[in-house]
């Protein structure tokens, strides 16, 4: 048995050892065995609108430059001068065809070539001029750009496995291609990064942790539909990816009510989708989804706001979080206003939900100081019985943890056996070309 996971199928019970949340050796091993091996989310193509636009951000502890070159092609560079190591770019975002290292003045183009070296006659004509370094692999799916530091990593689409279905369900919500709204939410949490992974697909905590959010929604005139709220399943998407998928029309149930005009526009948009994709797929589109793409990308389509959340481990008890909102650009002003309002009210670091999550996770981390006396956290909910687990149970977390355990220990734990989920949660996408972002 792994020292981290107690996967008892007899009782049944699933437990995670809290050492995984506090031990620096575990943290270092995660970097080597997980983050240096798999595909990791970098950013969305639509964040870069013009040639030579760039963003800088960290991936697996490495500073990266995510940009477009002068011809508009996506480029990804390690943000370190090949000369002596200083950061080439110290801005979070901008537009530059050339970047010059402020240490010794070496300049590089947005296509990564070394274009100028002060006093280059001292190097001689045979000197091999290094360009900017790239991660081993770069690829994208529906505008989501991933990188890997492992040259032998499997193709991205194979890695994403069943998660592609749920990315398509979001990408299909725009004829023009879903686009990231300018700006980011950036916040930090004094807790282990895996706690936010769990929290992002934890349906069980919603009513207790987010009580004040629900009270606000009800005070705004919404009658929460208990039947719909309970209509969800947890799905194992393969490779550690997992999702809570809501039933039809559950995508907006937690949000503040739409105006009459917003409701009409939303209905018209989805009616058009039904003509294109058919009812089964659009029923799935209209549902909520909380997805984790292993290890640290979260995509949640809930309360009308599609949040893309990147979780960066910094130390065993500290993480940084960057989040963006993905929207259909063709929406009218009223629907967009309400979407942004719901997004900020629920998801923002100053919203009525995320701060409660942060508080919960930070108290977990503080209490893990007693991990020797109280070593195990329980993640067993929904393990018993044949019934397929609902979203308020914990199959999704167990799915993610089994994959984590496999990377960390080599121990392969078999998937749980349950009845298949209802067909409405797995209806296939009609064979149409996938939507691509337009930027």
């Amino acid at each position: 048995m792994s020292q981290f996971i107690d996967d008892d199928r007899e009782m049944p019970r699933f437990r995670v050892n809290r050492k995984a949340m506090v031990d620096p050796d575990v943290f270092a091993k995660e970097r080597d065995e997980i983050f240096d091996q798999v595909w990791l989310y970098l950013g969305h193509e639509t964040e870069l609108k013009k040639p030579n636009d760039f963003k800088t951000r960290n991936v697996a502890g490495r500073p990266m430059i995510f940009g477009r070159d002068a011809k508009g092609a996506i480029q990804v560079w390690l943000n370190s001068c090949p000369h002596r190591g200083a950061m080439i770019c110290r801005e979070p975002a901008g537009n530059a065809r050339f970047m010059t290292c402020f240490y010794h003045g070496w300049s590089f183009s947005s296509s990564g070539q070394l274009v100028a070296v002060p006093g280059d006659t001292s190097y001689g004509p045979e000197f091999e001029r290094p360009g900017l370094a790239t991660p081993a692999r770069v690829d994208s799916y529906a505008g989501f750009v991933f990188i890997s530091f492992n040259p032998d990593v499997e193709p991205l689409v194979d890695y994403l496995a069943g998660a592609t279905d749920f990315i398509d369900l979001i990408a299909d919500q725009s004829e023009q291609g879903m686009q990231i709204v300018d700006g980011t939410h950036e916040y930090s949490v004094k807790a282990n990064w895996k706690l936010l992974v769990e929290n992002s697909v934890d349906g069980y905590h919603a009513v207790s942790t987010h009580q004040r959010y629900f009270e606000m929604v009800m005070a705004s005139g919404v009658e929460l539909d208990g039947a719909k709220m309970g209509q969800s399943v947890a799905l194992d998407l393969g490779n550690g990816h997992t999702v809570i998928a809501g039933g039809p029309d559950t995508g907006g149930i937690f949000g503040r009510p739409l105006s009459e005009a917003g409701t009409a526009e939303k209905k018209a948009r989805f009616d058009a989708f039904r003509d294109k994709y058919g009812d089964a797929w659009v029923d799935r589109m209209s549902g909520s989804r909380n997805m984790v793409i292993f290890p640290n990308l979260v995509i949640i389509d809930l309360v009308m706001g599609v949040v893309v959340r990147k979780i960066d481990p910094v130390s065993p008890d500290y993480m940084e979080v960057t989040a963006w909102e993905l929207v259909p650009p063709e929406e009218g002003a009223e629907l967009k206003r309400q979407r942004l309002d719901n997004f900020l009210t629920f998801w923002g670091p100053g919203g009525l939900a995320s701060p409660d999550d942060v508080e919960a996770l930070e108290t977990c981390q503080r209490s893990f100081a007693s991990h020797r006396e109280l070593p195990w956290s329980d993640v067993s909910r929904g393990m018993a019985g044949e019934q397929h687990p609902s979203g308020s149970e914990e199959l999704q977390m167990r799915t993610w943890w089994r994959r984590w355990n496999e990377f960390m220990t080599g121990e392969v734990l078999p998937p749980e056996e349950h009845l298949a989920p209802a067909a409405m949660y797995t209806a296939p996408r009609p064979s149409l070309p996938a939507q691509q972002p337009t930027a």
Partner: protein
Amino acid sequence: MSTVIPSIAPASVDLPVAGGTLTVAQILLPGVPRGAVVLLREEHGTDGRMAVLMNALAEHGYESFAADLATLSSEPLSDEAALAALGDLVAHVGSHGWTREQTGVVGYGFGGRLALLAASRTQLGAAVSVSPEGVGRSTPGRPALVDAVPAVVTPWLGMFGAVDDLAPADDVRTLAKRLVGPSPQYSEVVTYPGVGGLFFHESAEALAHAAMFDSWQRVVEWLNLRVVPRPTPYAEIWSLKQALGE
């Protein structure tokens, strides 16, 4: 004790261009200069200030070519006539070995207007307009820029004073909205609070001095981030080897 870099006196060249002969002040540099800049003066601006700017550009490795296109005619020059002359001036810069990508254009007032018009029609390394003339107002031969410029094909920076009667804030916002989003190339509009259209001149008043200082820094940064540097002989050897697969 500070080191004083001796200033370079610009050479004066009479250049035949469309519509007449243009007097061009130019500073050429030894070694491998970084790039070239066309400086377009305010209508009937002063030579002395241009020489200061040309020296400041030389400190950053740029050869410069300065002119006041309005001197070509005793009548107000139309956009088309001025742009034809500007085309000849850019060709003159090219005769010194500078490609268009290695050339930036920086203009003030009427010159700023021409820099924006050039950026809308020609792919250059970079363009900067400081207090460009006629943002929302037309005069004969010079339509309002908000109507005349649908998009830019050269990265363009526009800088304005917030209390400039000749560039009302609404007109500047309209121009920015029109250019920043839809243009195929990146563009940026900066407005300085509390100053008029002559903010780029030295001033003892604090806001104006800050605007002058900041705007010049932005000019240099805009050029450095976008004008393609001229390769050194060793860089050319390296490029050739790369092309030949050696």
